[in-house]
């Protein structure tokens, strides 16, 4: 160990190339992770923010808000279940919004929600004709007190405040009363309008295990999911995750190959020295341990550099422009994956270290 660390201190230049390449790979890894987190965050915020033990859809909707219809009699049945403390309706409409000051064709994408039970971080429903806006809409020029016009009918809605992390399908959300949502739907999406009392989904608060009992009580008319299940059921979420995770996986394999090649070369170069050290009584395990220590140190330095780069990038990117979310969890996870790849990469040098013959030190001039 001591020998390996001393080599790095005395000959840092030998390790610069590998550290730079790995830093770039680590940065790529963290960037991909940050983009995935950002994308997922911006498509699931509206559901993640729900304070609910169950989100109830109609059973034929495949957990899609747009397809789901929950009638008032179903709601009544749910309200009567033991353990249910509160039930609120939820409805959505995805529309273009005209923002004063922007060009006539420069529409902001919004997801308007009509709600009865306040999600986390969102106040109780505002007066009719008003809405709270997600702060990512600030990037579209939306400000507090402004009245924006929704959809082809240009239904006016006044923005009375901002909320955080409630985006849906990459769109900034607007949080309004159920009546406002119904009137916007009627004016802009007459085909999708719902009768009074009918919602797309119900937010149910109560016992932790309430979801199963709801579907029983409604005789199979509903599909009740926990918040996490509902988030994962949003169309596209799983696909985004698996696509990104595959790219992340390939990136880790590349890191592994880089580490493996770099240390395999170093090991070949050192085989003379390893022969001498083995003749002097060094065990193969000690020598290989040195290789692993060096790989871990190189990876750790690369991870720290990449993390610093990501924090800088995060600070430079204006909010709302790119869905990049840098979190300590993602950075640590990326660093740990890289460390595992580094150690696995070293294993390619193990056989070579084991095969160095101490006898090679004697009788040669190398």
């Amino acid at each position, binding site marked *: 160990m*001591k*020998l390996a660390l*001393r*080599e790095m201190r*005395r*000959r840092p230049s030998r390790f610069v190339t590998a550290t730079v390449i790995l830093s770039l790979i680590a940065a790529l890894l963290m960037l991909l992770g940050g983009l995935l987190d950002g994308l997922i965050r911006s498509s699931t915020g509206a559901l993640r923010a729900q304070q609910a033990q169950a989100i109830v859809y109609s059973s034929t909707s495949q957990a899609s808000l747009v397809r789901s219809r929950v009638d008032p009699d179903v709601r009544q049945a749910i309200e009567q279940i033991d353990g249910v403390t509160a039930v609120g309706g939820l409805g959505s409409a995805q529309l273009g919004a005209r923002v004063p000051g922007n060009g006539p064709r420069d529409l902001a994408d919004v997801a308007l929600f009509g709600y009865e039970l306040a999600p986390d971080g969102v106040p109780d429903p505002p007066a009719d004709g008003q809405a709270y806006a997600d702060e990512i809409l600030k990037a579209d020029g939306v400000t507090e007190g402004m009245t924006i016009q929704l959809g082809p009918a240009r239904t006016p809605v006044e923005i009375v405040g901002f909320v955080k992390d409630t985006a849906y399908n990459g769109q900034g959300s607007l949080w309004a009363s159920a009546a406002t949502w119904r009137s916007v739907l009627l004016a802009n999406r007459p085909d999708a309008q719902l009768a009074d009392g009918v919602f797309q989904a119900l937010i149910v608060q109560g016992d932790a295990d309430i979801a199963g009992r709801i579907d029983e009580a409604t005789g199979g008319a509903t599909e009740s999911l926990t918040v996490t299940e509902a988030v994962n059921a949003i169309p596209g979420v799983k696909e985004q995750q698996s696509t990104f995770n595959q790219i992340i996986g390939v990136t880790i394999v590349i890191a592994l190959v880089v580490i493996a090649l770099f240390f395999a070369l170093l090991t070949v170069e050192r085989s*003379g*020295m390893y022969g*001498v*050290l*083995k*003749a*002097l*009584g*060094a*065990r193969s395990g*000690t020598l290989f341990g040195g290789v692993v220590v060096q790989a871990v140190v190189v990876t750790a330095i690369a991870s720290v550099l990449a993390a610093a780069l990501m924090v800088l990038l995060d600070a430079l990117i204006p909010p709302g422009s790119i869905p990049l979310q840098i979190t300590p969890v993602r950075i640590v996870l990326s660093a740990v994956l890289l460390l595992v790849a580094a150690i696995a990469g070293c294993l390619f040098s193990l056989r070579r270290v084991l095969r160095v013959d*101490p*006898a090679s*030190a*004697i*009788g*040669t*001039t*190398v």
Partner: protein
Amino acid sequence: MNALELTDVRKVYTMGDDSEVVALDRASLTIGSDEIVALVGPSGSGKTTLCSIAGGILRATEGRVVVADEDISAYSEKELTRFRQRMVGFVFQSVNLVPFLTARENLLVVDELGQRRGKAAQQRADELLEELGLADRAKNLPSQLSGGQRQRVAIGRALMNDPKLVLFDEPTSALDTKLGEQVMDLIRTEMKRRGTAAIVVTHDERILHYCDRSVHITDGVLAA
């Protein structure tokens, strides 16, 4: 106690086409506890093989190998590694110091890789450097030392574990005559002072008089 007793030692290498090459044929050699023996022979004669077997680097195919009363004939790789840590010292032909370690650290490497005695090892390294006239060079890297100084560091490294037997592989081949004589003089002085036995592999007839006796080897066969 003898430093080395080889009895009927054979070393046979099996080549790729299943033919056998006898590198060492029924070699018997006894070296006293403070004897310096020159092992002389042309290249390919088996010097290196004999040296490697005596130092616990190679295992003999047949025969008995005893170093300082320790029979190593049947030792496993691991046992041989530990044996080398404790009992023998090596000075290699091309010196082979670790290039990024100072003279002192090159001595301490033996301890770090083996017995880990810490403070005691540091003290021993300082004493050895002093005796070898390298006290003021302790913090120099090998690249900052002359050929003779490097050779002395290598001798110091071989003596770090207080060996019973030191093996010198062509210690003067890379040095000019004058320096070669100085190094041999130093080897003799250091070995005699410690009462340590040594085998000096060489084909340089001019240094034989620094040794107590010479043993010739030709085609794997020893002749006194």
